[in-house]
């Protein structure tokens, strides 16, 4: 079981209310997409679930229980938007991943596990000793994903994980996300501004505007028959502005 519930979650920075009573259920073993304008509070919602944003009201529950935020094993992991700041520039990528492993391993099994994780995200295991500066943005983001998976989470929060990636890599990562989800039954909150990407990976989608959820439901229903004007506006602003002739 791994259902993630946000109940009446409210986050304020000073007088600025970023999240305003958000209630949202991420169904277990499903990928829920979260779309919405820049600054609407998508990242803040994810950060609230892992204790990185202060709740002024409400709570976040994992399977009906408050999320564990102590100790070595963390069932919720997060992958961030900005690949340039998501890895410690002074640490080799192998060490960054090792740090997230839930239990201490001996040298050889640890090396094997890091290699497995790197291969999982299509990186050459020989690069484990490289510092992040030697990696391109897309490669760093793949390391960040490997690090999140290292913690063997039941829920993964993915905040714009493909927005800084190449389309070719994006395809591979999206395939990877779906594959992982299918194989391990991960529950995921998948934040993205790209509706086509969300449509492809997510079974459910929630639309956020100005700190509130304005619409949610199965992806095909929401995208085929949007109930609010806001969602229609989002759909209309896809680049190209509509259907495009095929090659």
């Amino acid at each position: 079981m791994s259902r993630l519930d946000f109940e009446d979650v409210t986050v304020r920075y000073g007088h600025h209310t970023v999240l305003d009573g958000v209630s949202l259920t991420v169904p277990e073993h499903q990928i829920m997409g979260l779309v919405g304008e820049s600054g609407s509070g998508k990242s803040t919602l994810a950060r609230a679930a892992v204790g990185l944003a202060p709740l002024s009201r409400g709570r976040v529950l994992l399977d009906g229980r408050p999320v564990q935020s102590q100790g070595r094993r963390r069932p919720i992991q997060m992958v961030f938007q900005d690949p340039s700041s998501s890895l410690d520039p002074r640490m080799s990528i192998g060490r960054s991943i090792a740090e997230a492993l839930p239990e201490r391993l001996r040298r050889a099994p640890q090396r094997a596990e890091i290699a497995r994780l790197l291969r999982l995200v299509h990186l050459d295991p020989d690069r484990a000793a490289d510092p992040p500066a030697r990696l391109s943005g897309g490669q760093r983001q793949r390391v960040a994903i490997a690090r999140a998976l290292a913690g063997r989470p039941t829920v993964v929060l993915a905040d714009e994980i493909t927005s800084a990636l190449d389309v070719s890599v994006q395809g591979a990562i999206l395939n990877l996300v779906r594959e992982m989800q299918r194989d391990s039954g991960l529950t995921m909150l998948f934040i993205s501004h790209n509706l086509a990407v969300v449509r492809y990976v997510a079974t459910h989608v929630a639309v956020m505007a100005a700190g509130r959820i304005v619409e949610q439901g199965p992806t095909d229903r929401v995208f085929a028959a949007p109930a609010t004007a806001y969602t229609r506006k989002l759909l209309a602003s896809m680049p190209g502005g509509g259907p495009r002739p095929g090659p």
Partner: protein
Amino acid sequence: MRRRRPEVLRTPLGIVGITLLVILALLAVLAPLVWGDRATATHTDNMLAGPSPEHWAGTDNLGRDILFRTLVATRLSIVLTLAATIFGVGLGLLLGMAPLLLPRRLGRLVVAFVNVLLGFPSLLMVLFLAVILGVSTTSALLAIGIAIAPPFARLVYALGAGVAERDFVAAARIAGVHPLRIMVRHVLPNIAEPLVVNATVTASSVLLAFGGLSFLGIGVQAPQFDWGRLMQDGLAIIYDNPLAALAPGVAFVLTGLALNLTGEAAAGTFGAKSRIRTTRSLTERRSVSPRSNTRDADTDLVLDVRDLEIAFPGPYGPVSPVRGVSIALRAGEAVGIVGESGSGKSMTALAVAQLVEEPGRVTAERLTFCATDLRSGRRTAHDALLGTSLAVVFQDPMTSLNPVMRLGSQLGEAARRHQGLTRRQASARAADRLRAVHLSDPERRLRQYPHEFSGGMRQRAMIAMGLMGTPRLIVADEPTTALDMTVQRQVLDLLQEIRRKHGTALLLISHDVSVVSSICERVLVMYAGRIVEDLPAADLYTQARHPYTRALIGAVPEMTTDLDAPLATIAGQPVDPRHVPDGCAFAARCPRVTDRCRQEEPTLQAGPAGTVACWHVGDPLPAETKEVAVG
């Protein structure tokens, strides 16, 4: 990583500073062993003597040799300085890290406490503490340590808070790494450089403070002696023998100088790393490569780049991430560059903006911006031209925005320098530009720091910064990557609007074919540092002929993509610029590859729509019509 010569040792200041420090360290170790006896031997028959061949700096009131005493005192002076500095720095580290580790409330209390301590003049504090703790060397040491702790604590806190803000720290917290371990492993190493610099400079004031206390008689007590005490002894006889006070004085000055020079030099190298360094290594290349575009010198070109090559030194010979790229842009023209990460798109943009960092070398047969040859001439003249006429919007807004400056000052800075606006005008202009990029409440935003912005907002702030002037060319490197669809649309519309109004040329770099094709007239496709296809954007979806271009187009998920099949991806990895293969660089991933491709490199050839570098554009597709490997 390989160890290099420490950067401190690359500047004359640093060399002098470090050399002095080494000499002092040697003296501290050796002097008491070699001259210890002579420094303490009393000669009642030769008291208060002036300089002589036996006693170069004379003798004191017990007939002891002043020069040797000064040399021998090096050890105590330096040991005490180090001890007090270490104690103070340690205390400062604790006080500075505490607010980052303690619960919020308690942390604030510590910050407030440190701020109160900072209010006391430190000399006063030293005197106060020295009196309270009693007169002894130990209490002087404690007093000085306690006095230097608060400013150091504040520095630790300010720098540490900046690093703690970053995602890798958040990731470690989510992974369940203990906060103390996060401090030691992630935060401290990333702020170590400025802390070391600061501690070095602090040590020189500790030296003086200790000397001062000894001089006043509340530091080192007889029979021990440090330079401060020697100074006091010397002052009593200054009219008989000025050297008695001068010798320890010189020791003070030299040691202070050594510490300060080293600190300054270290600070200089540290600062240089965070600033963008540009190379001035442009050299003309005479050989005309066949790849260079044959268009003649054209005066209404805003940007004219031919056969651009960028090379970095590597362990096995130079590595070239950009190899023979030519781009020409007219006023008002929008050209897009697409390609995977590592294909050299961003490096090309950096070279145009003269921002390639050391040790990169940029060479080109032609590199002309607004009719000015950027390869020669005075640097300052180019800076002014680039500052006003070229706007660069980068992929990663956080690295281009200064985290410790309010947005308003950052936007205003350039406008005030290059356009001579007053502070008020600059701030009005900044607010206007923020409104233009559709940031709500611009006046409030101007007073905020970059970390208070969402990813998308930072990106728009960056674009606003580029628009503070009226640029002739905007180089935008992935400007909308982090933006949601609505804002992306607005930003692209905004760029279009600027182009139309001011005839600004646009070089738009993106990995997203749909973004580039939606606003550019021409699209350049880059692979492994070369342009492999150049065609009108309108023809991109219908006329693209290079297998790589077609694969890029096929990899973008659309609202109609089949949900049951895996997405199309390009098999294999992009080419590592360290190992560029012979022949066509795309060969390893290409569905149409033949032996010829692996041996001979194709060059750009004109076709019905644009130019393309591929041997097999005309050939029919291989058996399966899908050009991209699925998986």
